[in-house]
């Protein structure tokens, strides 16, 4: 492993700092050792430094990134996700067919040269609809995850850091929300709003999906806030914003990132479920969930219109969960 060499090369000169001393510092001689160890005599750091200018400092995040690049599941999920995200942003690159152009005469066709994935009951091209459907799923997944990280992270960090009555209240609120099933709550929420868009789905999933993040954040913050470097910062006179922003959050966020990445996939699946149930995105929007739903009526005659969006949905969810696993392994090897 070339990286190992790099590491060793770095450590060698630093170790030698302490070596000239160790020979004379046996426990019993600690008292007798008065003059021999002054720093001036040692020339501690004047040892030639083997590091080249190309050697950049490696922080914990850089370590994690290095770890990620050694992980095959990161590459597999990364390539798949890049492809899917590109498809969501530029669907026109993948197909010239308008997904809303539905000649009813072409209903329920099998895959062919004209229609790669066949057509659905209204005669729309399933391939085009699958390509265009990626956008809704990816937006819902990413935006909902961002929302739960903000809500859950804030609530968890506050209750973990301040503790006391604030923690008691926030923890009870979290418990109450935990008692509400996500799908049921989202169903009620979606049926009570007039205009159903991607963003109402995001709001529904976000408002009822932050609890796990909050709990993880709370536990993580409690662990970090007891650490010596936080005490050291407080001893220096650092205020709460600095301690939270510079010391607690950067060290507490790793497990949250892991769980957020994994739950991203489940939010996409939940959005598809809502759309399948007819309460997610309106029929004017193109989404995998809605297409899977409408395909069930023609399942026996033309299974392709169900199979293709389902494969894309599964692959997307799978990719995010795989990415989450890779991120977890990189950020927190203890969780493995």
């Amino acid at each position, binding site marked *: 492993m070339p990286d190992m060499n790099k590491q060793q090369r770095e450590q060698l000169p630093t170790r030698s*700092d302490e070596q000239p001393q160790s020979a004379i510092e046996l*426990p019993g001689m600690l*008292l007798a050792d008065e003059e021999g160890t002054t720093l001036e005599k040692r020339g501690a750091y004047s040892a030639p430094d083997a590091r080249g200018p190309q050697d950049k400092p*490696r922080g914990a995040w850089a370590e994690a990134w290095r770890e990620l690049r050694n992980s095959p599941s990161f590459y597999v999920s990364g390539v798949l996700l890049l492809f899917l995200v590109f498809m969501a942003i530029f669907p026109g690159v993948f197909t010239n067919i308008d997904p809303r152009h539905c000649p009813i005469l072409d209903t329920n066709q099998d895959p062919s040269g004209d229609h790669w994935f066949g057509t659905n009951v209204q005669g729309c091209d399933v391939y085009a609809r699958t390509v265009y459907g990626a956008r809704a799923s990816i937006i819902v997944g990413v935006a909902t995850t961002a929302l739960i990280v903000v809500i859950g992270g804030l609530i968890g960090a506050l209750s973990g850091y301040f503790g006391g009555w604030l923690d008691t209240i926030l923890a009870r609120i979290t418990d109450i929300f935990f008692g509400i099933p996500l799908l049921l709550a989202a169903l009620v929420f979606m049926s009570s709003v007039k205009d159903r868009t991607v963003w109402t789905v995001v709001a529904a999933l976000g408002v009822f999906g932050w609890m796990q993040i909050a709990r993880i954040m709370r536990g993580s913050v409690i662990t970090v806030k007891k650490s010596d470097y936080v005490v050291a910062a*407080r001893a220096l006179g650092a205020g709460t914003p600095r301690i939270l922003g510079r010391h607690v959050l950067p060290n507490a966020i790793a497990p949250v990132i892991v769980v957020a990445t994994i739950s991203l996939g489940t939010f996409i699946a939940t959005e598809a479920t809502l759309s399948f149930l007819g309460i997610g995105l309106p029929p004017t929007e193109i989404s995998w969930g809605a297409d899977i739903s409408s395909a069930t009526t023609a399942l026996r005659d033309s299974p392709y219109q169900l199979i293709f969006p389902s494969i894309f949905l599964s692959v997307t969810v799978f990719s995010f969960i795989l990415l989450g696993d890779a991120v977890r392994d990189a950020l927190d090897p203890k969780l493995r």
Partner: protein
Amino acid sequence: MAESPNGATSADPRKIVKPVAQGEPILQVRGLVKHFPITQGILFQKKIGAVKAVDGVTFDLMKGETLGLVGESGCGKSTVARLLMNLESITAGSVLYKGDDLAKLSGRALKAVRRNIQMVFQDPYTSLNPRMTVADIIGEPYDIHPEVAPRGDRKRRVQELLELVGLNPEHINRYPHQFSGGQRQRIGIARGLALNPEIIIADEPVSALDVSVQAQVVNLLEKLQNELGLSYLFIAHDLSVVRHISDRVAVMYLGRIAEIGTDAQIYDHPTHPYTQALLSAVPVPDPDGREHRERIILTGDVPSPANPPSGCRFRTRCWKAQDICAEQEPLLEIRKGLSGLGAHDSACHFAEEKDIVGAA
């Protein structure tokens, strides 16, 4: 220990050059008390008792001296450090820094005073933020107290500090995990020195380090004291390290000071039975001395600080205990009948010299 070359402290050259500081006290601790409440109930908490972690500690820290604070685990040493650093609220008593009571100051005045008291932590592996570079760690004090160094000056200052503690100033962009334990502790010391404090509270600064590295760090602390005129409160449980660095030593037991005096007084002329028992447990490198010395073996455990014994805290394990020890709390004072180096503050009704280490 008496057989080691500088066992007789009066013959120690360093101690002649730098006599025990007799100057004015820079930090006066008076009747310091910290009780941690024991509570019951979830929402409406009821106090059902208190852990008396520190229960009336009084001492002075002189300018330029090193005061060693020793005692076994759980005796309240670290709580004293946290109280002096204002990391815990003081239950009772006062901490006077040049006459200002830290417990009564707040806001800006407290921040200004606190700048002068800094801390070095025990574990160099946990006391440095793993996500910050050395430049950020040592430079952070300047972000918090911007009046100390102008912004443009900080990098140079950080590099000077690194050089001062014997690290390569070019390593400012490295992260803590790229350093060894001893080097990390040097970074911790540099952080403590950043604000030019007058007092450093070192809470077991070497006990997490390799024995081979301990002496380097202790010697660095001594060098810095000589160069910068620092006062140290050096907390440790390693008696030989404390003797090496301290001008005066205070022995703590169960939240109180049992005995306090110069290192010669404490090590060569201990009068408190607890100190004598502690010293008799110090390993003696010389096999001859080991055969001749007396070992005092204490029975029982340290009582719970939530329910300490009445009168003398040590009486439950003391071989000299009489009725008076349970009835009357022994004050920390010089006892009658003691002379010479034995005449120092000792909280025992039956304080009496007993040569432990020089028994041969």
